[in-house]
């Protein structure tokens, strides 16, 4: 019985991590697209990007986001937000760490593949990795923290919706019972 409950919790954790990681990646992509389009840079950026490299980069980022979100949500998941500001702060910190990991690993992967394909010297590769990964880690961390705030806002909205709906359902039942 305990095993069944643990299995259910594990399955819930997997679904939650999958949904949260996919949502954050999709929103980030859309915001990036909007910003690039509004600044007029979209045309130039897309022209220099092939279909296969684009799909590969997106899939790599998705994989990293899914793995990092699984780790970030492992300790209770979004339900931790019910613990008020303490729960939110805890998730924001985990989101920052997960985002930093994604940013660093993403840049490292892209630089490594680019260097292998273009035959870049080892020293310049190490230098780019050292400076770039640290910077990407900070940027990724900030994005990760902000993503948690967005997730928390949506979680709060969902809770309000369920609460109101349940209340209206209960009052309907009560009025039916009176008649």
């Amino acid at each position, binding site marked *: 019985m305990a095993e069944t409950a643990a299995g259910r919790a594990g399955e*819930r954790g997997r*679904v*939650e991590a*999958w*949904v949260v990681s*996919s*949502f954050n*990646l*999709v*929103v980030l*992509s*859309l*915001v990036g*697209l*909007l910003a690039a*389009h*509004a*600044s*007029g840079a*979209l*045309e130039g950026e*897309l*022209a220099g*990007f*092939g*279909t296969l490299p*684009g*799909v590969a980069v*997106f899939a790599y980022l*998705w994989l990293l986001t899914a793995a990092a979100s699984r780790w970030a949500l492992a300790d209770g998941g*979004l*339900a931790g937000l019910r613990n008020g500001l303490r729960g939110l702060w805890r998730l924001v910190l985990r989101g920052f760490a997960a985002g930093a990991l994604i940013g660093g690993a993403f840049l490292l992967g892209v630089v490594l593949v680019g260097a292998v394909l273009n035959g870049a010297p080892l020293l310049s590769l190490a230098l780019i990795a050292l400076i770039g990964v640290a910077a990407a880690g900070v940027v990724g961390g900030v994005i990760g923290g902000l993503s948690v705030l967005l*997730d928390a806002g*949506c*979680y709060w*909205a*969902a*809770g309000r*919706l*369920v*609460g109101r*709906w*349940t209340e*209206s*359902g*209960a009052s*309907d*039942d009560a009025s039916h019972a009176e008649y």
Partner: protein
Amino acid sequence: MSAATTLLVRLVHLVGMALVFGGAAFAWATLSAAGPGRADAGGSTASLGEPAALAVTYEWVFWATMGAMVVTGVGNLGALGPPGPSGRWGSILTAKLLAVTAFVLGSFVRTLVVFRLRRGDSTGSGRSLLAKGYGATAAALLVLVALAEVLAHG
């Protein structure tokens, strides 16, 4: 981009839209047919059961498809040659991107409602909330399809 790649990208994008729209319409019809699902006469607050399983399956597929649609949507833009921010076509693209972003945010709230109901936050009345959520998803997708049609054909 070669003609075959362009065709494949568009096919994935179209199939993705058919999947999320058809799934939302199916979930809406199934949950609506099952009735409002209020607490029974004894005041039972049974969990959602099968409707929740259907909803969770849809959410899995939905978010996988959304990821695929974003990447193929960018591929489509690359194949067509994206417009600048000004002009009619550019404005339609801005409107579509804003509408898709709003839709994705709303969809995430819907998914979190499913999670909350599954955790037992609600009585059986959650079933009608889910039905309305999937109905709204299907309706919003129709609006997005119309915007995409205008974007593609003017």
